[in-house]
């Protein structure tokens, strides 16, 4: 049983894209499309979530993601409360449930959760009252479903269809919740070839069982691609046992104009941000004509509005 769906198959929580039916992914993308113009109106709001209380519950700091959720919620006229709860090893577990219970007592309708532990959003979703919806805004290495959805939205906007695409995801797949969500979405939406490209130290065991082709040679992996998704390489992983240096990484796995030229001429370049220029991507590519990195940010708001609107309208929120 999928904990994200109601008995009649509608979205109750958004925890992961793993196992979500194609129809629901498409419904979210279509709904996002209808929210696209709200940001351009004189009044940048629709009243759909008027009177609802949404709590941004960030156990791991992230200004960017929190802000996009906040803007999305406010454009739906919801009341948004931001909570940045630093997790320390002393106050870990119990604090989560205590926090959740306290906020539920304040009549919360929706929790947007970010946490450093994989499965944290599932854990909270299991414990909340039936009228509360949970959106996973990133849990450990596990999932970042709204990022995955906004990437699909971006691909659809620029490429129209999914069924004829070759998509490459490049970099630190091992630690990336974004990559996992992208892979599930791409395979569910019918992309015939999804590739992951990276050194063996940054690709997780058995990743091919998620339906992807594995490449260790970036030039071979980029050949014929329609979409290239670059992943962020965390600072602390640039030097050590996973990689010898950021310079060597850039040389073999950074996206330069020369490597980009191996993909299809109309290939688009994506990045979930924030970018490490000169580590995973060359500035010339990041700011170049094939980059759709800034549109991704804009679409992120419409996609998050769509998710919140669909969840709030499941009848129990």
């Amino acid at each position, binding site marked *: 049983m999928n904990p994200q769906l109601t008995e009649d198959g*509608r979205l109750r929580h958004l925890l992961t894209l793993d196992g979500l039916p194609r129809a629901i992914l498409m*419904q979210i993308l*279509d*709904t996002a*499309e*209808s*929210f*696209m*113009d709200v940001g351009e*109106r*004189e*009044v940048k*709001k*629709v*009243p*759909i979530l008027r009177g609802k209380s949404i709590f941004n519950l960030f156990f791991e700091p992230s200004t960017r993601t929190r802000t996009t959720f906040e803007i999305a919620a406010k454009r*739906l006229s919801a009341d948004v409360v931001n909570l940045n709860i630093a997790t320390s090893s002393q106050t870990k577990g119990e604090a989560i449930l205590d926090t959740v219970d306290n906020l539920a007592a304040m009549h919360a309708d929706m929790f947007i959760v970010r946490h450093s532990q994989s499965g944290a959003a599932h854990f909270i979703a299991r414990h909340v009252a039936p009228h509360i919806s949970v959106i996973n805004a990133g849990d450990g290495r596990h999932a970042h479903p709204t990022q995955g959805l906004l990437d699909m939205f971006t691909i659809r906007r620029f490429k129209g269809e999914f069924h004829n695409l070759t998509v490459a995801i490049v970099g630190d797949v091992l630690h990336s919740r974004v990559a996992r969500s992208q892979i599930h979405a791409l395979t569910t939406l019918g992309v015939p070839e999804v590739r992951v490209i990276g050194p063996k130290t940054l690709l997780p065991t058995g990743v091919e069982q998620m339906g992807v082709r594995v490449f260790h040679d970036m030039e071979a992996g980029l050949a014929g691609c329609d979409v290239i998704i670059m992943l962020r390489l965390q600072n602390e992983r640039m030097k050590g046992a996973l990689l010898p240096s950021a310079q060597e990484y850039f040389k073999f796995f950074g996206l330069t104009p020369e490597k980009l030229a191996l993909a299809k001429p109309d290939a688009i370049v994506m990045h979930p941000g924030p970018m490490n220029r000169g580590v995973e991507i060359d500035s010339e590519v990041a700011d170049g004509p094939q980059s759709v990195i800034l549109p991704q940010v804009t679409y992120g708001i419409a996609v998050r509005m769509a998710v919140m*609107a*669909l969840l*709030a*309208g*499941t*009848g129990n*929120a």
Partner: protein
Amino acid sequence: MPASLPDVDPLIVRLAGAIAPTITPDTVIVGIHTGGVWVAERLHAMLKCSLPLGTLDISFYRDDFSRIGLHPQVKPSNLPFDLEGRDILLVDDVLHSGRTVRAAMNELFDYGRPASIRLAVLVDRGGRELPIRPDFTGLELDVPAHQNVNLSRLDDGHLTLSLA
């Protein structure tokens, strides 16, 4: 009440006739999805408006949203003109409780401040729950609360009314 409902085309012609004298260069026609857009398309053509037709999907403004959720096929609203100072002719197919019109007016105001809004409906079936009345009406019916008046469009574009 009639056993079968009248043809739609003469109703739209009558409606257009009533509206025509009030049309100004600043008038914009806005149809409410889905049936209201069909009627508005006809009126827009007959009245030879210079400004493009606007469409509204009021899903995000419904007052029953938290009860019934989001309509599965939300279509984007499309108002390809500045609303500021315009005379708006809002068009819907069937006027019942008045809630759809209320939602539509709220949405219009989020795009700007029009000079005026008038309401044209193909059928006024009664049963109002809000202080809203049409300025132009194609047909007045007295329909029991449990019944619905529906406008549908055939593949050839022909519009028909039915009672269910």
